[in-house]
C-alpha cells in the first residue's frame, strides 16, 4: 500500500507540474494502434539520431534528447510488447505486429532541453508519457454504459443494415421462437448467445465495426462464463417496459437484463474506470481505406461506431484543478492511417474524407472549443513513391511488397474527397492493396507524418 500511495502522490505532483501526459490512442480493431505505438516508441527512441522528425519542433531544434521505457505504474497489467512487435517487423519476411488480444501499458520518459534555462533547475526536463494498448473490439463497449438492457436491445436491432440482417437470420429465427416471459435453461441460453456471437463474428469478417458487445468477439479470460451469455431481444420496445419489469425473476427477459447489467458493471465499467477516464490528449486512428474497400454500408457503420465511441470521452479546456483531479482531453488529432497505401497527391482527399466521416463528433468538439487537427499518416511506411511512364504520361505509383511478399509496383487508385453515390459502388468500388511492412534494420522506422502528429499532440509540452 505505501508504495501505491507514494506512487499516487508522485503522479499528482508530476501532473501538477504538467510533466505527465496520458495519451489515448483510440481506434477500432485493425486501425493500426499497435503499429502506431510501436512506431511512436521507435521514433522517440531514435530522436536526434537517425529518425527523420522534421515536423516535430523540439526534435528539429535538436532539443529532444530521446526517450526511455520506464517501469509502468500498474504492475498488474502486461507491458506493451514493443520488442515482439519489432521482432515481427524485422522477421523474414517482415510481418505486421500481431493483433492485440489484451490490455498492455507503456510508460515513456521523454527527456528534452528546455527553450530557456530554468535557473537552478538546469536546462533539461522530463515528460512522462503514459500509453495503453488494448483490443479495438473492447472499445466499442464503452457506449454500452449509457444504456439499459431494453434500450440497448432496441438500438442494436435498429442499427442492423440489410447485410447484417442476413447474417443475423439464424439467430433471429431461433430467438423469436421464445417469448420474453419464458424460462429457458442454461444450455439453451448458451446456444442462443453462441448464435448471436456467430452473427457478430460474421459481421466483423465482412468488415463491419459497430459490433457490441466487444467481448463476444474477443472474450479474453471470460470465455464461456455466463456473463457473456446474453443477447438483445427482438420484439420488445420501450412501450412495454412496465409489463416486462413485472415479469418473474427467472423469465428470459429478467435473466438477460441481469447478465447485461453484470457485464456493464463488472466488465465494461472497470475497463473504463481504470483506463479510459483520465486522458489529456487523444489520437483517433481510422482505417479509412479499409472502410472504402468494404463498401458504403460498412463506411456508414464505421461513422456510427466512431460517433458513439467519441461520446465516451471527456473533452474540454484544462486548468490546474481539473488537470489534477478530473483530467479532460484538451487536444485531439484524428488520423487516417495507412496513408502510405495511396500516392502522395491523394493525401488531401484522405484528410477530407476522414473529416466527413467524423463530421458529427467534430461539431461537438468545436462546441467544446477543443482544437482538432486531421492528419493522413502512416506509422510504419511500407511503400516507396515512384513515377511510371505509361501512355506517354507520367503517373505516380507505389512500390512495395504485398502481404504474400510478392514485389508490387502499382497505382492504388484515387481516393474520393467525399463518399461517392450508390451508383459508383455498383460500377467500380475500391480495391486498395495491402502491403507488408518494410524490413526493420535496427534504424528508425520510416513513417509518414508521425512527426507532425507528435508535434500536435506533445509539442507544446516540450518547451
Amino acid at each position: 500500500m505505501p508504495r501505491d500511495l507514494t506512487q499516487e502522490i508522485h503522479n499528482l505532483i508530476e501532473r501538477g507540474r504538467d510533466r505527465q501526459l496520458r495519451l489515448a490512442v483510440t481506434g477500432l480493431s485493425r486501425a493500426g494502434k499497435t503499429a502506431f505505438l510501436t512506431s511512436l516508441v521507435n521514433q522517440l527512441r531514435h530522436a536526434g539520431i537517425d529518425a527523420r522528425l522534421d515536423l516535430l519542433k523540439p526534435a528539429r531544434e535538436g532539443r529532444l534528447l530521446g526517450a526511455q521505457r520506464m517501469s509502468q505504474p500498474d504492475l498488474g497489467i502486461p507491458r506493451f510488447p514493443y520488442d515482439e512487435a519489432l521482432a515481427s517487423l524485422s522477421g523474414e519476411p517482415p510481418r505486421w505486429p500481431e493483433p492485440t488480444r489484451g490490455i498492455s501499458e507503456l510508460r515513456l520518459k521523454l527527456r528534452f532541453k528546455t527553450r530557456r534555462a530554468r535557473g537552478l533547475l538546469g536546462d533539461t526536463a522530463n515528460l512522462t508519457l503514459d500509453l495503453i494498448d488494448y483490443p479495438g473490439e473492447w472499445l466499442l463497449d464503452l457506449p454500452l454504459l449509457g444504456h439499459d438492457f431494453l434500450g440497448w436491445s432496441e438500438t442494436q436491432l435498429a442499427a442492423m443494415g440489410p447485410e447484417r440482417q442476413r447474417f443475423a437470420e439464424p439467430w433471429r429465427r431461433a430467438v423469436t421462437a421464445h417469448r420474453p416471459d419464458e424460462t429457458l435453461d442454461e444450455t439453451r441460453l448458451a446456444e442462443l448467445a453462441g448464435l448471436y456471437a456467430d452473427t457478430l463474428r460474421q459481421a466483423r469478417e465482412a468488415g463491419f465495426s459497430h459490433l457490441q458487445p466487444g467481448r463476444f468477439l474477443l472474450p479474453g479470460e471470460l470465455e464461456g462464463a455466463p456473463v457473456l451469455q446474453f443477447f438483445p431481444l427482438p420484439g420488445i420496445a420501450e412501450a412495454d417496459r412496465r409489463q416486462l419489469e413485472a415479469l418473474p425473476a427467472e423469465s428470459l427477459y429478467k435473466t438477460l437484463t441481469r447478465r447485461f447489467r453484470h457485464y456493464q458493471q463488472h466488465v465494461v465499467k472497470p475497463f473504463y474506470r481504470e483506463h479510459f477516464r483520465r486522458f489529456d490528449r487523444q489520437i483517433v486512428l481510422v482505417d479509412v481505406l479499409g472502410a472504402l474497400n468494404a463498401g458504403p454500408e460498412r463506411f456508414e457503420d464505421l461513422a456510427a461506431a466512431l460517433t458513439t465511441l467519441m461520446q465516451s470521452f471527456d473533452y474540454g479546456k484544462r486548468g490546474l484543478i481539473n488537470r489534477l483531479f478530473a483530467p479532460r482531453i484538451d487536444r485531439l488529432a484524428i488520423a487516417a492511417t495507412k496513408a502510405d497505401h495511396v500516392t502522395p497527391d491523394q493525401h488531401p482527399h484522405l484528410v477530407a474524407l476522414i473529416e466527413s466521416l467524423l463530421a458529427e463528433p467534430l461539431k461537438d468538439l468545436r462546441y467544446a472549443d477543443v482544437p482538432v487537427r486531421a492528419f493522413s499518416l502512416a506509422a510504419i511506411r511500407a511503400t516507396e513513391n515512384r513515377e511510371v511512364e505509361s501512355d506517354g504520361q507520367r503517373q505516380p505509383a507505389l512500390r512495395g511488397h504485398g502481404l504474400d511478399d510478392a514485389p508490387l509496383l502499382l497505382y492504388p487508385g484515387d481516393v474520393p474527397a467525399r463518399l461517392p453515390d450508390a451508383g459508383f459502388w455498383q460500377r467500380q468500388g475500391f480495391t486498395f492493396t495491402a502491403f507488408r511492412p518494410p524490413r526493420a534494420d535496427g534504424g528508425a522506422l520510416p513513417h509518414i507524418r508521425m512527426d507532425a502528429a507528435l508535434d500536435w499532440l506533445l509539442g507544446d509540452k516540450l518547451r
Partner: protein
Amino acid sequence: MSDPRPGRRFDQPTASDERTDDDATLRGAHAYLPEQASTPAPEEEMPSPALDAALAPPRKRRWGLLVLLTASLGLGTLEAGQTLYHATLGGDWLAGAWSALGLLAIGLGGKALLGELWRLRKLRRHARLRERLDDTWPASGEGAQENVEPLALAEALRTQMGIAQGHPHWQSFIAAHEAHHSAAETRELLAWHLLRPRDQAARRLITRMSGETAVMVAVSPLTLVDMALMAWRNIAMLDRIAALYGLQLGYASRLRLFREVLRNMAFAGASEMVTDAGMDLLSMNLAAKLSTRAGQGLGAGLLTARLGLRAIATTRPIAFTADERPRLADLRREVWQQLRRLDDSAQSGRQPS
C-alpha cells in the same frame, strides 16, 4: 368666412389597383428537364480585392517625368551623335571629343537608369512572390488547393533569394522534404531550413547596429552629426538586411523599400508599439538617470532596432508565425548593456584622474 368642409369618404383602393409596374415583371414557375445542360450559378464576387486596393497606398505613375526623361535622353543622344558625325567629317577634333564624352555620359546614365529599373522590378517581383507564398499556403490541410505544387514554390523562392542548388541550407531542406508534405508543412520546413539562418544573421546585425548607433549618438558632440549618423547607419542596415534575403538594392528600390518600412512602422506597427513604448520610455528614463546623452543614445538605438525588425518583416519572403517573430524586448536589453558598458568605462576612466 367659409363653412367648414364636410367629411368625405374616399374609395378604398383594391389590391388590383395597387398593382404597380414592378409586379408585371414577376415571373411564374418554370420547370426544366433535368437533362438540360446547366452551369453552376456564378458566385458573388469577393469584395476583398477592391478593399485591398483601397487600403494600399495610392499608386502614381509619373508619366510627365518619364516622358521628359526619355525625350531628353533620346534627343541628347541624337544631338551628340550628329555633332560627332559632323566633327569627324569637318576634322573638328575638339567638338568631336566633347560629343563623344557626352555620348559616354548618356550611355552611363542610361545604364544606371536601366539598372535601377531592373532592381525595382526585382523588388516588385519579391513582393509578388511574398504575396503568393502567403496566399497559397493556408494554415491547415483542409483548404489546401490541389493545384499548388509546393516544391515549385520552394524553387521559386530559392531562385529569388539567390541560393545555389548546392548550398547546404537548400540541401538540408531537400533532405527534409518529402513528396507527401502538404503546402503548409513545406512552408514550415522552408522557414526553418532557408530562412532561420538568415533571420539569425539579421538579428545579430540589428543588435550590433542598434548598439553601435546608441553609443555613437551618446558620444557625438553635435545634433546635426547625430542626425546624419542615424540616417547613414540605418540605410546601411536596411541594405544589408535586404541583401540577406536576396534583394540587391539600387537607389530607387532602396527608397521604395525604405518608404515601405517607414509606412509599416507608422501604421502596421502602431498597435505593437503601444506595448513596447511603455518599456521604451521606462528604460530611456533609466538611461537618462545615467546621463542625458545616454538617454538620447538609447532612444536612437531603439529606433534603429525597431526599424531593423520592421525591415526584416517587410523583406522576409514568408511572414513570421507568432512565436518565430523576433521581439524588441530581447534587443532592448542588449542595447542597454552596450550603454552601461560605455558608462562604466567612462566612470573608471574618470576615477584615476
